[in-house]
């Protein structure tokens, strides 16, 4: 059974946001990594790129498929997880610890439209 963590915000497209102050750490959920199988490449945006809620910001490729990443929130990319460039499989080891991008949130009210852990767990069944 896929792991779900309390206190994060979840999107239907299986991304999560972990909010710390003005910043959000965005990654894919444990359920998503489990569905994808061995991740072999993560296509990430660059620092200072703008991301928009509901729009594509990159892609994850596994041995099975390439899937677009959709940002659950809007904002500016302040950091990308460079460790994933050489070791994309870190996402399989721990999807919640290995976030993909860190974003300075431009509209915190967008978080209200996302799901909590219980609601997300329900759609993964």
């Amino acid at each position, binding site marked *: 059974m896929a792991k779900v963590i309390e206190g994060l915000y979840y999107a239907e497209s299986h991304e999560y946001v972990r909010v710390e102050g003005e910043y959000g750490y965005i990654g894919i959920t444990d359920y998503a990594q489990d569905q994808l*199988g*061995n991740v*072999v*490449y993560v296509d990430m945006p660059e620092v200072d790129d703008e991301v928009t809620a509901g729009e594509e910001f990159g892609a994850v490729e596994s*041995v*099975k*498929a390439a899937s677009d990443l959709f940002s659950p929130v809007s904002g500016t990319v302040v950091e990308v997880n460079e460790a994933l460039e050489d070791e994309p499989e870190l996402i*399989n080891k721990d999807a919640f610890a290995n976030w993909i991008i860190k974003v300075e949130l431009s509209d915190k009210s967008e978080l209200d439209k996302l799901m909590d852990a219980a609601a997300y767990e329900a759609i993964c069944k």
Partner: protein
Amino acid sequence: MNKTYYSKLIFELSRPGRVGYSLPKNEFEGYSLVQLGATQSRQTKTLLPECDELTVVRHYTNMSNNNFGVDTGFYPLGSCTMKYNPKLNEELCQLPGFNIHPMTPAKYAQGSLKLYDEVQKTLAEIAGLSRFTLNPYAGAHGELTGLMVIRQYHMSRGDVARTKIIVPDSAHGTNPASAAVCGLQIVEVKSLADGTVDVEALKPLLGPDIAGMMMTNPNTLGLFETKIPEIARLVHECGGLMYYDGANLNPMLGVCRPGDMGFDVMHINLHKTFSTPHGGGGPGSGPVGVRKGLEEFLPNPKPLSNSPEGEGLYLRCEESSLGYISFFLGNFGIIIRAYAYLLSLGKENIPMAGKLSVLNANYIKESLRSHYELPIDTVCKHEFVFDGLREEYGGDHHSPEHVTTLDVAKRLLDYGFHAPTIYFPLLFHEALMIEPTETESKETLDDFIAVMKKIAEEAKADPQLLKTAPHDTPVRRMDDVKAVKEPKFTFKAL
């Protein structure tokens, strides 16, 4: 393998001034035919390799020795039907009478046109359909052509609202891809736990916007879809047509017919089911067949009889056709090979091909299920899918260190077998899809089974041996992703 000649590029073997020829003295030194401007004439050296003849011969002979094909070894690549390509096919397609220009007037090409017509009639009988076009160049090209037939049919009735096509989640990736190229929107229908299409999940998807449904039978798990008559009835009731993906036609040969099951349009891969070359570019051939009433929509040109030109077959272009998908009559050399195969087997023996392919697949499946995880336990058709190694052989998916299907496939190369299809279909995490075909002997199957068991034992005893495989191939394990992301196409880029 000779590493000196194989592992180096021809450019690395090059030595300045070395040649493999001797030309007569140039009598026109300094003479140029046309004075070209600076933009048209080369400003740098050509940088072609300079080698003696023997070096060139050894380089390419050693390289060709490292090719792998169905002529060199067992090739259990699931979904690809890598059956043997009889040498008789090659001999017959080289008959001088077939060596004609594609623009030869029909009057002087009656033999070739008759062959085309006999192949199309034979395929129509095998498929239980009315007429085939042999013009498409490959399987996916056939899928696109077949979907264009369906669209043309709806358009001809003024029914322009049918823009969606239903595709099962177990489908070949080419199905949604071809539908998208055809401008159709894809609606996915789920499979049941037994791997077949969920009829209850299909019902709410049907309506006046559905152009049709694409199905593969046996499906990509090698399982026979038993509910086709009901599915076909439901799709027809909503006004859609049924499309049959012929990729898995092999086990059905001479046993049952897509037309009888209710399919309206289908394609066949001659390079799978009818023993024409496959892999390394083929080329392929993807004939498309239709049921009675849809013939007029097939692509132009069509070799038809009863024409104003007189007796025989002449190329016709019909207004009601979907148009051209190729300018001539497909990959004709391949069609000749398929004809040779059809006549070699004959009507009496064609059903044996399908039955033996099913027997071979089940023999391997039952022999290996003790070591590999069999997710759906039933009689398969021409192929089947394992979900990786069994837990006790290091295949526990939940362990991050588990031995993967990729590791097993790479290790197989060390034993001289081509790897099966891996990570397809997507329904299972560690899919390993094996299709032996009917042309393999029991001895070959037994060798393969023994090696697969040995690999499972190795995975248990020494997982690292598999993780670092292959060990004995000319090139070791490659970084597939980097090769795609940072391809180097020229010697200079290295």
